[in-house]
């Protein structure tokens, strides 16, 4: 060796030196262009973690009261995606957009990262250690207790059924008998009260839409926020199933065509607040004609005066229509539901009584209305109770207020002056993870962990107990609310013995021991516990309930609604399916999710009928002042045909003055102009109680939306077929012409990935859009960029307003995403082969190769390609959510839907290990997985037995812009139109 070295004339050491210097120089040179990212291996790898292999944990979504079971995907210790838990009877494996975006709550950059306490000396909040923070709480509590003021402690939380509720109860008992209020902004008191009046049960039953063929909804926005939207949508999907030329029918009664109304077969634009009369009118017809299935008894007398003619005058609904609905309702397997926050007027309880009567006389109680399995939201406090609490606070009767997961300052009408009431509270402790309007007033902030970081459970309805388990480590210095309460007692001598358990997990497990003994008496607890954690959900059978009419029904008088008669227009505010009561507003995915009907983002608006708009000289985008006796709000107009000319509507959820960078100072809060009035019987807040005036301000600006065209201009993008035509065979093959091709047809060996989208089921809810953002690392760009049409979503839900034959509004939704064309127009025009057709039918996109000529996007007939105009930065720790399987795109490259190619590859890898092909249903794309109405089906077209192959030959199947002959891989199924109602 040494001989050789000498001969070569260069010593080994010198050679290494040169290599070292050269390599170093290269490294320095290369680092000039882009920062080099290092992959840092685990020094001591944690057990059970294989890099690259995800882990899945069952848990429960706590974004609203519905309590959907979810499965959280965890990669290398970070939660990266939420999906529905198929074991959960609520979610059935699906979630909504809010559920998808819940991870942005976990990783929100505006989360409170450690405890804070008000320092009296410097007059501001200062960070404090957990020990000191908890001691502060415990000392104050024990002082109050020793002074005998323990009952002046109030625990104000959202709806927390399950073990945590009993923990709060125990804690309050130990601390001197304070009160626990469960406050939900939308708690549906009138339903509860009406059930008490009609059936003697002050509870909210489960409504089984899936078992009905005919759904009559009096304003209930069941696809958006009403009770359990994901579950309702599953029912909707079942009802909308087209089989043998038949499908269910939905009639929606509401002054405004909401997203829910848009998916109904008939929208009845009733006069606001008069739904009760329509229900009674229908009942009247059913009873008179003897169509009812149950003997009406005393009910006949209640409805006898409401003949179709009388009702028609009161409601502005045509008598023929009333009779028609009555007939259809009585002769089908029907269900009537009522509610909808938007239509909750002063007579809301009466409306629900009328709806109950309808269900009762048609024998739906016990069939489609199930009182054996009532919802936990039944247990929340009514608005009346909350109002009394606020009055108590104002009067100085509350010494210590613990605020947990609620934001009353934002969600209660400003007439109630919660701000002043909060100022009179002795001491406010906030357990909120965010600095919202209410917790800004707290003197001690003990931030609770997110539901993704803590143990817990939730009982959405009697039969279901759903587990909440930590899916990753704490991100910040936070504690779960249960641990806060338990360890607070440990830090004070007098409270030390309150709990035998040291952590909330122990407390939870001891509660679950009882559940285990009841549900699985023969199973050991640890086995049961493990099974529960894996399943995520435990079901408890409920005894059947016999429901009869209550004598209280006799006392009911159907009063007309009361409005403050100052204005010209009924004022509706409706809960947004994106923000609910405003809690979603701090999540950029939800802010950037275009609202289904307006496609508006990042802002508020007011919906105004075209006639009203032209009368007042308003256009879409005009700023208008909405004035009520209590004040005014100013926002932009959206001219909307789907609202009555005498009504205007503003969505609820925006207008935060705090709550983080994404929510703050955006839009308006309609509660600023609503009076604190309520429905007399139920003490529920009357959301529909005001008439307002519109005052043109003269200012105008772009109302930022993602779609500016209203109609599809007869271009047959979103197609529909009448049920009549569908049941005959003549419509088929109308559009399936064979087009001659210049190039030979493409052949696929094993897979041709393809998709089916059923427009009859698509509700426009946008869950797929948000799921796609989450799965594919799609950046959000903010309002100013969306104003330039630069939103990055790979799926957009197009919304077109069409006209029915009778001139009524027909709203159509169509999700538009890369169609993975067999004959893709984008492919031949790319000069560098950055986009190409892969052997499995995917239209591939090579980001590295893209130079950014953007010709592909110009040539795409579906306009589904998105360009990275900038380097989009996602603020930490939001970027922890990024999916490691998907490239984060840099500026200057094109991107678009990949059919979740990372999931395809993962499934193919697994199949390859087992030496087989990927099986049908083995994996799902993110949009298919999430779709609450099962409108999206994905699969392999080569496999003749696959669902997607069968559906592609469906009678309703068509390709958008078929005449261009791009041979798209997506088959849409036409929306089914019922004959004129």
């Amino acid at each position: 060796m040494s001989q050789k070295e000498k001969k070569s004339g260069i010593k080994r050491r010198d050679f290494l030196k040169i290599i070292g210097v050269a390599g170093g120089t290269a490294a320095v040179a290369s680092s000039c262009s882009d920062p080099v990212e290092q992959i840092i291996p685990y020094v001591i790898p944690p057990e059970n973690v294989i890099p690259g292999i995800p882990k899945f944990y069952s848990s429960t979504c706590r974004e609203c009261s519905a309590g959907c079971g979810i499965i959280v995907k965890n990669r290398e210790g970070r939660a990266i995606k939420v999906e529905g838990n198929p074991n959960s009877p609520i979610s059935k494996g699906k979630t909504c957009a809010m559920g998808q975006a819940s991870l942005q709550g976990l990783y929100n950059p505006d989360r409170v990262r450690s405890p804070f306490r008000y320092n009296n000396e410097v007059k501001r909040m200062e960070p404090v250690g957990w020990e000191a923070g908890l001691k502060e709480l415990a000392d104050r509590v024990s002082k109050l207790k020793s002074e005998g003021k323990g009952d002046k402690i109030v625990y104000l939380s959202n709806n927390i059924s399950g073990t945590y509720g009993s923990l709060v109860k125990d804690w309050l008992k130990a601390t001197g008998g304070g009160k626990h209020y469960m406050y939900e902004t939308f708690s549906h008191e009138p339903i509860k009260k009406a059930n008490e009046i009609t059936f003697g049960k002050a509870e909210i039953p489960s409504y089984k839409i899936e078992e009905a063929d005919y759904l009559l909804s009096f304003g209930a926005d069941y696809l958006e926020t009403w009770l359990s939207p994901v579950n309702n949508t599953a029912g909707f999907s079942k009802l909308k199933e087209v089989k043998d030329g038949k499908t269910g029918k939905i009639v929606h009664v509401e002054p405004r065509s909401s997203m829910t109304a848009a998916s109904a077969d008939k929208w009845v634009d009733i006069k606001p607040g008069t739904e009760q009369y329509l229900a009674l009118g229908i009942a009247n017809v059913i009873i008179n004609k003897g169509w009812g299935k149950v003997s009406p008894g005393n009910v006949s007398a209640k409805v006898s005066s409401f003949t179709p003619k009388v009702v028609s005058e009161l409601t502005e609904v045509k008598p023929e229509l009333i009779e028609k609905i009555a007939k259809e309702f009585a002769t089908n397997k029907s269900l009537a539901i009522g509610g909808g926050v938007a239509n909750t007027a002063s007579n809301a309880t009466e409306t629900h009584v009328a709806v109950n009567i309808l269900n009762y006389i048609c024998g739906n109680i016990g069939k489609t209305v199930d009182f054996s399995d009532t919802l936990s939201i039944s247990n929340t406090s009514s608005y009346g109770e909350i109002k009394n609490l606020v009055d108590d606070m104002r009067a100085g009767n509350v010494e210590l207020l613990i605020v947990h997961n609620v934001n009353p300052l934002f969600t209660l009408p400003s007439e109630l002056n919660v701000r002043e009431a909060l100022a009179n509270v002795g001491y406010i402790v906030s357990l909120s993870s965010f600095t919202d309007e209410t917790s800004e007033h707290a003197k001690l902030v003990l931030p609770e962990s997110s539901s993704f970081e803590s143990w817990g459970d939730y009982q959405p309805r009697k039969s279901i107990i759903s587990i909440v388990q930590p899916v990753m480590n704490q991100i910040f210095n936070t504690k779960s609310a249960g641990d806060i309460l338990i360890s607070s007692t440990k830090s004070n001598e007098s409270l030390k013995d309150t709990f035998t358990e040291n952590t909330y997990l122990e407390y939870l497990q001891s509660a679950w021991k009882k559940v285990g003994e009841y549900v699985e008496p023969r199973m050991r607890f640890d086995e049961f516990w493990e099974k529960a954690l894996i399943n995520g959900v435990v079901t408890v059978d409920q005894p059947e309930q016999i429901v009869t009419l209550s004598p209280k029904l006799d006392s009911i008088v159907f009063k007309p609604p009361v409005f403050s008669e100052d204005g010209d227009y009924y004022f509706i505010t409706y809960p947004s399916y994106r923000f609910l009561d405003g809690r979603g507003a701090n999540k950029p995915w939800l802010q950037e999710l275009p609202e289904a009907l307006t496609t508006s983002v990042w802002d508020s608006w007011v919906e105004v009928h075209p006639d009203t708009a032209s009368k007042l000289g308003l256009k879409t985008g005009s700023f208008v002042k909405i004035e009520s006796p209590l004040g005014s709000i100013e926002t932009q107009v959206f001219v909307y045909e789907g609202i009555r000319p005498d009504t205007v509507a503003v969505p609820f959820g925006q207008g935060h003055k705090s709550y983080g960078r994404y929510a703050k100072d955006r839009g308006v809060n309609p509660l600023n102009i609503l009076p604190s009035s309520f429905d007399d019987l139920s003490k529920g807040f009357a959301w529909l109680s005001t008439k307002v005036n519109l005052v043109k301000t003269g200012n105008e600006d772009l109302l930022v939306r993602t779609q500016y065209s209203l109609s599809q201009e007869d271009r047959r993008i979103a197609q529909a077929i009448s049920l009549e035509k569908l049941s005959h065979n003549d419509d088929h093959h109308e559009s399936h012409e064979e087009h001659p091709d210049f190039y030979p047809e493409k052949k696929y060996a094993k897979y041709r990935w393809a998709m089916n989208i059923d427009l009859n089921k698509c509700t426009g809810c946008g869950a797929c859009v948000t799921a796609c953002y989450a799965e594919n690392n799609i950046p959000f760009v903010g309002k100013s960029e969306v104003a330039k049409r630069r939103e990055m979503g790979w799926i957009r839900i197009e919304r077109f307003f069409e006209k029915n034959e009778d001139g009524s509004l027909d709203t159509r939704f169509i999700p538009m995403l890369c169609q993975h064309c067999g004959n893709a127009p984008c492919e031949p025009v790319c000069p560098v082969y950055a986009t190409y057709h892969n052997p499995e039918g995917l239209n591939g996109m090579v980001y590295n190769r893209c130079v950014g000529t953007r010709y592909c996007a110009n040539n795409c007939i579906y306009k589904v390609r998105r360009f990275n105009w900038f380097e989009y930065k996602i603020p930490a720790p939001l970027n922890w959510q990024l999916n490691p399987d998907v490239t984060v795109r840099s500026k200057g490259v094109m991107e678009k839907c990949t059919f979740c190619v990372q999931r395809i590859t993962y499934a193919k890898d697994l199949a390859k290990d087992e030496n087989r092909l990927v099986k049908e249903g083995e994996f799902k794309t993110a949009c298919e997985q999430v779709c609450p109405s099962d409108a999206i089906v994905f699969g392999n077209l080569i496999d003749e037995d696959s669902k997607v192959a069968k559906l592609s030959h469906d009678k309703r199947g068509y390709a958008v812009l078929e005449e261009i002959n791009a041979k798209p891989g997506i088959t849409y199924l036409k929306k089914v139109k019922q004959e004129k109602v």
Partner: protein
Amino acid sequence: MNTLIDPPKNPITYARVTEDVIRMLDKPSAKWWALFIPTLMFVGLGASCFIYQVTTGLGVAGYRHPVFWGVYITDFVFWVGIAHSGTLISAILFLFRARFRMSIYRIAEGMTVFAVLTAGLFPIIHLGRPWNFLWLIPYPNSRELWVNFKSPLVWDVFAVTTYLTVSSVFFLIGMIPDIAAVRDKVKETPRKIIYTILSFGWKGSNWEWLHYTRAYLFFAALATPLVLSVHSVVSWDFAMGNVPGWHTTIFPPYFVAGAIFSGLAMVITLTIPIRKIFSLEDYITLDNYDGMSKLIILTSCIVGYAYGTEFIMAWYSGSPYEWGQFVYRATGDYALFYWTMVICNCIVPIALWFKKVRRNIKALFIISILINVGMWFERFNIIVISLSHEFDPGAWGVYKISFVEAGITIGSFAWFFMFFLIFVKTLPSISIAEIKETLPVPKKGGH
């Protein structure tokens, strides 16, 4: 036909021609600097805008979904169009022996080369990742990555580079005898050396002239198809796409006619001030303008006819997308631009039917500028309006120009004029040799 040049009061002789042309190459005056320095500043503005765009992202331009091409491609097509008349005047008109070309063809050729140099910048400026523009050129590489020959953009690369090569060669070859003349007159060393090199040792012998005129004819014949092909290829950038308003067979002739139209207008715009500044009234005569104006009338008619045809075809096709597109052009968000185009390109040139106007320099100057404006909007309309209003109404949108795009566009004009200003001061802008061909041969031993 041989009396195209008016009999001059101060008769043009061989000596005067050489003198007059070389006079233009004197040391730049203060006036020249007053033009040149602002031009450089605007080039700087364009360059800064481009640097800002590269570092920040293409988002600083006005692009928005669904309009992915905008002012940059408009500028590209505009400048390629301008580049056209140079070769047309020097090659095609040479073959047709149209003698009015003689005094202006050098300026037109210079314009061609500079316009291609300007146009060539835009495909790079408009890229999302301009640092990777080399990937558009098929060069052997270790990764065995190749360009997609199906893509019209690749054809474009070939068409434009070919055009640049041929027009530069034609430009330089045509200048050899003139440069030799300049070489003989110039005394200072650096200039002398440069002109010596560029004149390729030209002596003006009979033998040289014999071969030179032959070669020139062949080059003219070679360059002629390029006039048609380059803009046809550029038009395929659009015609090969399936965007309503782009996807039409009329595009190649329509684009070529438009290019000649705009190129002639640009020649008029450029020569009028030069003629005035350098007192070249005796060389660039009203007859020359008259001839060019007639060509403008012809091309204006072709362009106008194409506008009409587009409408009729859109209507006759029965395609809602095509018809929707053209109704949108005339009545939609960009109607102002559409009608500007129609007025500038079809209505204004009607004035040229009158001989008085054709021979009125002021009127011609205004008309030619209006035509340039109109032709810029034509390209803008084809590109932007078509993209704004495609198949899916759910994806319609309106484009707005940004200050960066405006800056780069202004910079591109400055870039073009910068070359042009250097050109008039360094190279003979009027062909000495060809002018002399038309003059009576001086008597032997006359001096």
